[in-house]
């Protein structure tokens, strides 16, 4: 059991080293996030709608698209040099591969969110420091949900022809429930409502995470077994 985690961590480290050494992917994702925030700003009529009303939606749509972008490249690395076969031949269990990918993707998306959140607060004048703790909790839980399913699906779509189009089509229905709870929780927090209200949404997010991480963990071997 400890081996599974150790291997997973080694795999994650390998992925992250490759990603952050070349830096192209992470920088592109960061720039993309900034641009999406800009699109939101110019995509609304400033006289009609106050930013604070739209704030939770803007944040979460941005994070949804950023996560999608990150997940698209999740298995591209392996595709390029037939590295997936090498990975499968290595003496690590399939589950380790899933956990490793999951962790690497989480770090990647978290990095993008770590930059995106302060920029969001800046661009739309949204005070977040007073609820930063709970807000980070919401972001963490929702992100795990997105990435747990996304890692599984990107393993399947990576080898298909229209992967960049197919992954969003398959994944977005699964991102919508966490998105809804995250938006409701963020809205409650930013509006200064008591924590107990947001707690309900957090519980649902946690339940979703537990169910889908487990499910993806169990199903992942079916996607790579020959």
């Amino acid at each position: 059991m400890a081996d599974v985690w150790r291997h997973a961590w080694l795999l994650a480290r390998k992925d992250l080293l490759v990603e952050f050494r070349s830096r192209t992917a992470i920088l592109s994702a960061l720039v993309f996030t900034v641009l999406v925030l800009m699109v939101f700003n110019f995509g609304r009529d400033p006289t009609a709608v106050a930013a604070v009303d739209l704030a939770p939606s803007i944040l979460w749509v941005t994070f949804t698209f950023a996560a999608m972008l990150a997940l698209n490249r999740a298995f591209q690395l392996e595709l390029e040099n037939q590295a997936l076969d090498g990975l499968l031949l290595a003496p690590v269990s399939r589950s380790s591969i899933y956990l490793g990918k999951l962790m690497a993707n989480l770090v990647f998306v978290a990095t993008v969110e770590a930059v995106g959140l302060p920029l969001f607060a800046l661009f739309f004048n949204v005070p977040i420091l007073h609820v930063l703790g709970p807000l980070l909790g919401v972001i963490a839980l929702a992100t795990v949900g997105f990435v747990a399913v996304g890692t599984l699906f990107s393993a399947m779509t990576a080898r298909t022809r229209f992967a960049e189009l197919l992954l969003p089509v398959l994944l977005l229905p699964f991102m919508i429930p966490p998105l809804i709870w995250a938006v409701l929780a963020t809205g409650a927090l930013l509006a200064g409502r008591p924590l107990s209200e947001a707690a309900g949404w957090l519980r649902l997010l946690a339940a979703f995470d537990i169910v889908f991480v487990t499910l993806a963990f169990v199903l992942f071997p079916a996607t790579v077994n020959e």
Partner: protein
Amino acid sequence: MRLLKTGRWITGVGLALLAAVYVRALAFTPVERFQGPAQKIFYIHVPAAWSAMLAMGLVGIAGILFLLLKDPRFDRFGEASAEVGTAFSMVMLTTGPIWAKPIWGTWWTWDARLTLTLFLFLLFLGYLLLRGAVTDPGLRARYSAVLGICGLVLLPFIHLSVYFFRTLHPQPIVLKPSAPSLPGPMLVTLLFSFLVFTVLYVGFVTQRYALSLLREQAEPHA
């Protein structure tokens, strides 16, 4: 091929029974007092929803069974059920708004039921698109099973999210249909329609399954 003939026969019976339901619902079932004739759409929309949900459930279960038992028959069944489910979802997605317009005053609303309808349709489409994108049959079967299972598990979470989203963002409602406590004749019509839609589901899936089998026999794989 016998399976195909059985399927066609069942479908034929189903369509004949559908005509019977139509006649009964339109001519021999009382008109509901508050909603008027449009309420009768209910007798088509709700059983179609049942068939679509049944289709989705069976796609998921077929996926589980395929991964456990590796029997390609489950994969063929999943494929058939997904396609048939798409057809019933289209019935839901069209009759739903046509019902909503006179009853709620708007073609679309993000209420729990209509939204779930849309989700189901998109999940079915995703399943079929994934199948279309994978050429290797073994891989396609495994991927479909995975997606089908995930889709099934997602359904309760869809309800748990959309329901809360909806109740906190109420839409203006013109005529709120009360939860029907259906009087006798209406209940009979509804139950009859459930039966007919189930028969149609079985007939369609049988034919579609037979089609997969015929295709495989025409092009045997090494």
